[in-house]
């Protein structure tokens, strides 16, 4: 039986430890959005939204909602001093041009080589690509934040993705409810375990071989 591991908020908290002062960061819809709630002390970052906004703050209180001032998830947001607005073409020039330090994306599957699948599942029509393919291809660093297993208990980390890909060889780190895993040229390297989780638990929940020579317990 796979342990439950961390709740979503603590996955976000662990991802937040990867943020460094001065970074420009794009947070994907869903779990990644929570990361901005857990910025380490003294770390100021600039949030980029692919809809054409740089320097937004938190989710706006309901009485300050403005339908023209939103993030890429469609949520009304506040602005920090020094914010700016621009077109979608400029926004993706920032992304593809390598001007973003980091993006945190949700995931459906990640392969041992760092391929990401996060926009469609087989057998469902159409889909919603949004900015995911551009972010995965363009950001300097891609972290995937996701549950280790699907709701049906299937591993999301595999030798090869079986869902339609978002981008090839783009992921550098995976943070899940069970572990922190780095994608390295040698393969997937298990770096940290959630409290109460053992190496065997993570390997059992992962359909790819994990290197696990220097593993420590996650500090939150």
């Amino acid at each position, binding site marked *: 039986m796979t342990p439950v591991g961390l709740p979503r908020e603590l996955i976000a908290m662990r991802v937040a430890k990867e943020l460094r002062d001065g970074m420009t960061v794009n947070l994907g819809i869903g779990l990644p959005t929570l990361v901005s709630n857990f910025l380490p002390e003294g770390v100021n970052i600039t949030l980029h939204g692919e809809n054409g906004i740089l320097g937004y703050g938190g989710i706006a209180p309901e009485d300050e909602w403005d339908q023209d001032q939103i993030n890429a998830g469609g949520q009304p947001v506040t602005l920090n001093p020094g914010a700016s607005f621009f077109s979608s*073409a400029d926004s993706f020039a920032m992304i593809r041009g390598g001007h973003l330090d980091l993006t945190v994306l949700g995931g459906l599957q990640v392969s041992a080589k760092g391929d990401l699948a996060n926009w469609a599942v087989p057998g469902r*029509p159409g889909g919603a690509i949004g900015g995911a393919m551009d972010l995965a291809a363009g950001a300097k660093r891609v972290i995937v934040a996701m549950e280790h297993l699907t709701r049906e208990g299937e591993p999301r980390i595999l030798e090869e993705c079986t869902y339609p*890909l978002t981008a090839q060889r783009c992921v550098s780190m995976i943070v899940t409810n069970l572990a922190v895993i780095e994608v390295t040229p040698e393969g997937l390297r298990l770096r940290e375990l959630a409290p109460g989780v053992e190496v065997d638990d993570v390997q059992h929940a992962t359909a790819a071989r994990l290197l696990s020579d220097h593993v420590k317990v996650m500090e939150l």
Partner: protein
Amino acid sequence: MDKVYPSPADAIADVPDGASIMFGGFASAGSPTNLILAIYEKGTSGITGIANNIGLGDRLDMLCEKHQIKKMIVSFAIRASARKQSLFEQQYVKGEVEMELVPQGTLAERIRAGGAGIPAFFTPTGVGTVVAGGKETRVFDGREYVMERAITADYAFIKAYKGDRHGNLIYRKSSRNFNEVMATAARITIAEVEEIVEPGELDPELVVTPSIYVSRLVQGIRHDTRWFA
């Protein structure tokens, strides 16, 4: 030159069946709602639409009520996690509408290229995925890129904050999104604005869309756009 039309219905009166139309906007911000409602009333059919999103909460989805849309070129359309199906999704599942799904940045750049006289370009986005299927790829400096073609359209329906009678436009907050590039990429660009001002009232330093791109201008009324993913 005064480009102001008396109403949204007048501004779109010549849009024929089968037209290709770009619709600006992103979720709740910058949707040309007055022009969409006018084309809904007019009942124009066989539309090829180009937009960032169509789905629940989008006024664009209304055009599916009367089966006005033939095809959408779009980045965000059908969410597997959505609680219920949009009209567009229902019709897509039944094979009644076509969809070309495009990564959002590629969509923006294809439109930008269309407006700038660039027929095609190479992008890293989508390499090794279904969106690269059947497209030319090339390696530059050791990295693989996929060739994407420009998009232009018969009409662009865009939403700006203020416009002067010549068609110079400024936008409000994050409502600029796709409006700014779409304004450049259509044969006829129709802008609805919240306020029409006299030439000279907009600071030339702050004009975002210069008048050369805008064919027609119309005063809209502000609609609350409720949007949920």
